[in-house]
């Protein structure tokens, strides 16, 4: 066996992040009061990774590390979005974690490793790399949830997240081993070929598929693998909730694309109907259960469940009776959906973070009452986010729903589109209730909103982007189309 030095170039961004993580760790260990420095170093890491990613972007599909690793346009764009959302998360959470004394070098280290985990998941072309990335992400997140050690709620949430996450990992691993058994390979492209050529043992393949989908569903947080979401979202510090709710969804989408489309495309018929089942349940349960939540973090958790269900609709309408020419449109609409969901989630939790202060967490509907009287600017921004989430034209959320529904209709599942629209109608209720509470109720709390200017600006840009991209979605859609065109 001869050892070939692998091509490091396609993984340059990951390597950069790893190197930077050591730098952050060292400065944190040897310098006193280095929290501020850690923060800036982390932001620098993300920026640097973005630069490297853009610099190494060549529009080719490049495999490396003996085909365990893939670098393509979809991966690059997803990664860029991950950097952006993690950077925004950190920006939004800075004063929050400072006030709660959980800002520390470890916090930033965990965020960096979570980011690295996501990058690996997105770039995986092999079950092992995929699993490695997933575990790196998950373990970092478990620790982050528990970072507020004096809070019983957070510790409990972390415990639940960890146990259930372990179960899901087990399911995923089990599924992977089945697929390995059926095809004799762990490499996604080889698996695809193997199924294409020999078909493999159907029973074992199906077994494997079900378990893999279950593991994936846990990560996406769709019904019935969603149970951790409300508890973890509510229990974790808002800054961590924001992180969990945003960037990992991009990674989960990447993972779904790698696993299902790159690896198991031949079984599309089967996994599409499974995902449809999950999507229908998620859209229904997410929207209905959200109505009953007075706690906004929990409500946004349920709303996220329904959004992920919606995103799955894009994945279920790719192949119609063996006809694949809808696939590009359908998958790029799903990608668009994830992008827009992340943008909206960032802004929604961002508003909660703006309203929080030392010793007070804004997280219930009560806390938003009369926001318009306290700050009509932020009330306006939150209204944009809520309108967009409800899918009201002309915000990005509308266009995201619209393009997914187009894909669904094009693939012939008219009833599914009607169902999804009806459910978003129900969903509009709890989004609009937030708007109503902000504009028509009397404030319960009249303390001034004191947040750093950077955060105000970033949050405003975030919300305005939701409005602007709703009017000019072609630009983002182009990115999604290109990614799909080049990657598959």
């Amino acid at each position, binding site marked *: 066996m001869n050892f070939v030095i692998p091509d490091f170039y396609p993984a340059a961004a990951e390597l950069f992040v790893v190197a930077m993580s050591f730098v952050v760790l060292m400065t944190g260990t040897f310098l006193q009061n280095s929290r501020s420095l850690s923060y800036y170093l982390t932001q620098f890491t993300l920026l640097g990774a973005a630069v490297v990613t853009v610099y190494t972007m060549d529009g080719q599909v490049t495999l490396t590390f003996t085909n365990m690793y893939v670098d393509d346009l979809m991966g690059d764009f997803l990664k860029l979005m991950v950097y952006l959302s993690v950077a925004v998360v950190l920006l939004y959470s800075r004063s929050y974690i400072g006030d709660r004394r959980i800002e520390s070098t470890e916090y930033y280290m965990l965020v960096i490793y979570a980011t690295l985990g996501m990058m690996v998941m997105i770039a995986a072309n092999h079950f092992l790399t995929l699993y490695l990335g997933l575990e790196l992400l998950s373990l970092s997140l478990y620790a982050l949830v528990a970072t507020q050690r004096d809070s019983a709620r957070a510790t*409990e949430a972390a*415990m*639940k997240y960890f*146990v*259930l996450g372990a*179960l*899901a990992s087990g*399911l995923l691993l089990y599924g992977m081993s089945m697929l390995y058994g059926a095809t004799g390979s762990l490499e996604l492209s080889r698996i695809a070929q193997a199924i294409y050529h020999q078909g493999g043992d*159907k*029973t074992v393949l*199906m*077994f494997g*598929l*079900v*378990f893999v*989908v*279950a593991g994936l*569903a*846990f990560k996406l947080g769709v*019904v*019935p*693998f969603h*149970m*951790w979401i*409300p*508890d973890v979202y509510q229990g974790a510090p808002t800054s961590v909730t924001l992180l969990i709710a945003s960037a990992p969804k991009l990674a989960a989408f990447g993972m779904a694309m790698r696993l299902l489309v790159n690896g198991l495309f031949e079984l599309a018929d*089967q996994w599409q*109907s*499974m995902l449809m*089942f999950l999507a229908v349940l998620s859209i229904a*349960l997410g929207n*209905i*259960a959200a*109505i*009953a939540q007075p706690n906004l973090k929990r409500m946004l958790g349920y709303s996220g469940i329904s959004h992920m269900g919606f995103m799955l609709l894009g994945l279920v309408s790719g192949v119609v009776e063996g006809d694949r020419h809808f696939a590009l449109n359908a998958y790029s609409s799903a990608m668009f959906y994830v992008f827009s969901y992340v943008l909206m989630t960032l802004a929604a939790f961002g508003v909660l973070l703006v309203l929080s202060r030392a010793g007070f967490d804004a997280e219930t509907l009560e806390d938003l009452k009369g926001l318009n009287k306290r700050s009509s600017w932020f009330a306006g921004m939150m209204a944009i986010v809520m309108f967009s989430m409800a899918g009201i034209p002309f915000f990005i959320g509308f*266009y995201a729903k*619209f*393009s997914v529904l*187009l894909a669904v*209709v*094009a693939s012939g599942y008219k009833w599914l589109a009607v169902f999804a629209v009806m459910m978003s109608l129900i969903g509009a209720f709890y989004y609009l209730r937030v708007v109503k509470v902000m504009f028509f109720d009397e404030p319960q709390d009249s303390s001034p909103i004191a947040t750093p200017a950077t955060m105000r600006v970033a949050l405003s840009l975030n919300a305005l982007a939701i409005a602007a991209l709703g*009017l*000019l*979605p*072609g630009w983002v859609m182009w990115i999604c189309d290109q990614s799909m065109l080049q990657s598959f």
Partner: protein
Amino acid sequence: MTEMQKLYLLVPLAPLFGAIVAGLFGKIVGRRGAHIVTILGVATAFVGSVFVFQDVQAGNTFNGTLYTWATSGGITFEVGFLIDSLTVMMMLVVTFVSLMVHLYTIGYMSEDPGYQRFFSYISLFTFSMLMLVMSNNFLQLFFGWEAVGLVSYLLIGFWYTRPTAIFANMKAFLVNRVGDFGFLLGIGLIAAFANTLNYAEVFAKAPALAAMTVPETGWPLITAICIGLFIGAMGKSAQVPLHVWLPDSMEGPTPISALIHAATMVTAGIFMVARMSPLFELSEAALSFVLVIGATTALFMGFLGIVQNDIKRVVAYSTLSQLGYMTVALGVSAYSAAVFHLMTHAFFKALLFLGAGSVIIGMHHDQDMRNMGGLWKYMPITWITSLLGSLALIGFPFLSGFYSKDSIIEAVQLSHIPGAGYAYFCVIAGVFVTAFYSFRMYFLVFHGEERFGKAVEHDAHGDHSAAHGDDEHGHDEHHHGLAPGQKPHESPWVVTVPLVLLAIPSVLIGFFTIEPMLFGDFFKGVIHFSDSHPVMAELGHEFHGAVGMAIHGMTTLPFILAMSGVAVAWLFYMKMPAIPAAIMKTFKPIHTLLENKYYFDKFNEIFFAGGARLLGRGLWKVGDQTLIDGMAVNGSAKLVGVIAQLTRLFQSGHIYQYAFSMIVGVFVLLTFWFNRA
């Protein structure tokens, strides 16, 4: 993007910018800032339109997409411009009148607390109207259509503390929904059968559409499309029976009555039909429908103008009647005559409205003509300009209204489509009626006995006009008026300058533009008429120059009728005021009929509103209280409660239950898909 395309974009965006600045940052920029920025925006749009006009005159038209918003099922939704002679004429009219109204508003609204808001609205209106006329596709047309409707709604209810204003804007909104329903159906049919929303593509497919029928009904598709579109036009351009909102819209401030409810928005329907001429030409039935509706509006709405005492309402009914004339012209395939009348009417009707507004300022917001009289002494500029406007309206030779209205009347005479005979009677009788109510208003306001300062009971506010614009006083016109002994005075220059500037085109524009617009190449390739409706061509044979037409016009029936209308008005309201009273007594039923506006409002109130209320009550009692409240709402609240309980049951916080749910999920997936596979 070429230089011209940038210019096209600049024209609508400049007013939009003004609207945003004045609307969102009104407090920061202040009153002065608000009117400066909006006027600059509209002035930019006007100057831009002039350049575009020159470019179009040089033969450069444009039809293209600037931005594709979405693609769905083969239909693209896009933002695009179609710049040709029809568009550019509308752009010039809209931006010019809008500019005049902006200037005028400085004077008219000077004491209103909603000053910035008003400027923001009218600039927003200008933007929407420009988007409407510049569009090259139905989606953008519809956007503009709804946007102007929205701004119209906001402006009618501008003084939102007045219950009557709120009632009027609600009415305008609802009636327009009826029209929009038809409009949407028309667009929907086009989208469904032509599979495109782009004008040029639809027109290219028009012959194919003409051969189709609406599935399962056997109706000719093209007729269904055209009637659908025209119902939209009936709502927006206030044709019988969807006209009821326009008179009530006079609750809004006068400048918008001039801009929106006379010169531009209400003519959107006329513009739209002219733009769609390649479709309408293919359906004789639709044209006849258009013709009969237009003729009815032209004559019967004119009658109503006779019995009004509110100066603005007279002008409003006159607008209805003139819109009827334009619609008649559309019906007989004289699209260019309709658009020509649209243009001349925009100038002289805006002039008349602004003149009426000036009178209202002079009268301290008393709008009742019975309290006026002899104003010519006190308001010379308003007097002269209003006289010119009225003469243009009745079609006095050499003035703009003469050319456009006479062309329409002759076109109707030459047409042979069903309903043309009735229409000819209506338009010819309408001439007399128009002359009569116009000069009745003119004499009552500017001549005769000075009746002001007497009939006013409330003189508390009389000595200063501060009360107007004061929301606490609710803008009730009965609060205003001149105190005894007080004299009206001429309005400030910001009011009179627009009057003069509008009077110039009202007098001259017809004379100079009739030849190119009606008989020349101006609309060549833009407006189509089929060989079976050669009205305009025949009209062209009889045309021997603008001077000849005017001299010939003095010997024809319309002129005689117009002059006798003026004479009768003079006789009735200057010489022997006893006559109208006597006639009123003798023909009591007719007068009552007119006073009640043919009972349209009553009918709507009883039949539609009452019916809707009855239906609503029924639905409320049965549907809402028992079905929805009882079962659906309380039921679904219970259901949601149950689901919430269920989720709570599962969402117990116990990990093993969570894990159990996951295992169940896997189990379901497994069993289900094994049975399938």
